[in-house]
C-alpha cells in the first residue's frame, strides 16, 4: 500500500502556512527605535564607566570657550530662554527620541566632544541619559547638580562642599538611628534586622514537558 503521490493538498497546506507567516510579518510593527544595549550590558556600563560630569568642569570649559562639551538643555523652551549654559542646545526631555533629535545625536555620536545632558536637577537628566545610553550613544554624559546648581555656582570659590553629588550619603544613617534609639536600646549600634527573602515565585511558570 503506497502513498498518494498527488501534491494538491500539500501545496494548499504549504501556501496556508506561508500565508500565516506573511500575515504575521505584515501585521507586526517593529518599534522604530530599538535598544542597542542589553539590560546586562547597561548594568555593566553603569558600573564600569564614569557617566557624570561635574558642573565645575563644564563651567571651566565654557569659560575658556573650548569645544570639549556639547551641552544639551533638557528643560522646556521657556526655561531655556530664561537662562542656560552658553552654547547649549535645547532639546526638551520629552522630545529626545524625535527624529530631528536623534539625527542630532547621531551627528555628534562619533566625535570626541562629550555630549552633556542637563536638566533642572540631575535626577531629571538621568532618565533621558539612561535612554540614550541604552540606545548605544557612548559619548553622552549627564551633568551633576543640574541647572539649579550651575546657575548658583560661584566659579571663584569652587569649594561648595561638592553638594551636587547627590549620591553621596550626607548623613551617617546608622549613627542617627543609634543615637535616637539610645534611650530604648541603651547603646546598641545600628539595629540589625534579618531580612527574610521572599519565597521564589515566578509568575509565568515554565512548563514541564517531555514524555
Amino acid at each position, binding site marked *: 500500500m503506497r502513498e498518494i*503521490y498527488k*501534491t494538491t493538498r*500539500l*501545496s494548499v497546506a*504549504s501556501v496556508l502556512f*506561508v500565508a500565516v*507567516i506573511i500575515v504575521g510579518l505584515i501585521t507586526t510593527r*517593529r*518599534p*522604530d*527605535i*530599538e*535598544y542597542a544595549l542589553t*539590560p*546586562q550590558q*547597561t*548594568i555593566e556600563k*553603569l*558600573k564600569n564607566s564614569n557617566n557624570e560630569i561635574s558642573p565645575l568642569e563644564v563651567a571651566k570649559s565654557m569659560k575658556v570657550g573650548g569645544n570639549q562639551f556639547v551641552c544639551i538643555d533638557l528643560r522646556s523652551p521657556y526655561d531655556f530662554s530664561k537662562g542656560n549654559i552658553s552654547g547649549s542646545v535645547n532639546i526638551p*526631555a*520629552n522630545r*529626545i*527620541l524625535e527624529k530631528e533629535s536623534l539625527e542630532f545625536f547621531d551627528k555628534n555620536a562619533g566625535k570626541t566632544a562629550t555630549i552633556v545632558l542637563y536638566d533642572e536637577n*540631575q*535626577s531629571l537628566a*538621568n*532618565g*533621558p541619559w*539612561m*535612554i540614550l545610553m*541604552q*540606545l548605544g550613544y557612548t559619548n553622552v554624559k549627564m551633568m551633576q547638580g543640574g541647572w539649579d546648581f550651575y546657575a548658583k555656582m560661584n566659579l571663584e570659590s569652587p569649594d561648595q562642599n561638592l553638594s551636587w553629588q*547627590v*549620591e*553621596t*550619603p*550626607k*548623613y551617617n*544613617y*546608622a549613627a*542617627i*538611628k543609634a543615637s*535616637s*534609639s539610645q*534611650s*530604648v*536600646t541603651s547603646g546598641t549600634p*545600628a*539595629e540589625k*534586622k534579618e*531580612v527574610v*527573602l*521572599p*519565597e*521564589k*515565585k*515566578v*509568575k509565568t511558570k515554565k512548563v514541564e514537558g517531555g514524555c
Partner: protein
Amino acid sequence: MNKTYVILALVLVLLGIGLIFLKANPNNTEIPPDKLLNELNDNTHYISTDDLAQRIIEGDPSVQLIDVRTAKDAAGFMLPGAINVPMGDLLTEESKAVLTQDGKDFIFYCNGDILANQAWIISRRAGLARLHVLKGGLNCWVETILQPKPPAPTEPQEAFDLYQARLGASQFFTGATIEVKKSETKENVDLTKKTKTRKVEGGC
C-alpha cells in the same frame, strides 16, 4: 522530479533565508524606549518620603522596599523591611523572584535618587510593573523624616501639620516613642488624619 516539490523546496529555503535577515530574538516583553521615556517624563514613579513613611506606619503590607546600594552600605543601615538588591544583581533570578511577588509595590531607594532611578529604568524596561523610586532617597529621608526641621513661624498651617506628622514619624522610625509616651501617642493618632489632606511638600 515533480515540479511542485521543487517549488516547495525553494519556498522552504526562502523561509530559512528570511530567518537569517530577521533580527534574532527580539525580546518582545521589553518596554520600547519611547514608552519608557514617556513614563519617565510623567514623573509618576516617584514616591515622596512622607508618603512612604505614612505607608510604613500604617503597616501597608504591599510596600516592598528595595535598597539598591552596595551590600556594604546596606549592611550598615536599611529602611525597615527592605531587601538589598545591588545594581549589579538586578537581573539575577533571585532579584527577579523578589521583584515579581504578587501584590507588592516595589520602591527603589539609594542615598540620593539617581541610582534608584537607574534601577527603576532597567527593571521597567524588562517589563516589570508597580515599580517606584523614593524621591530624594535616604538623604531626604533623614532630612524630612528622621530629623525634620521646624517650619518658620510665617509659614502656613499646613507646614506645621506636616511638621507634626514628621515628628510622629520620626519617633516611629527611631524608636524613641517610649520615652515620651503620653503626649506622643496622642500625636501618633492625630497624624493619620491630618496628613491625609497634606498639601505642603517641604524638604528636598
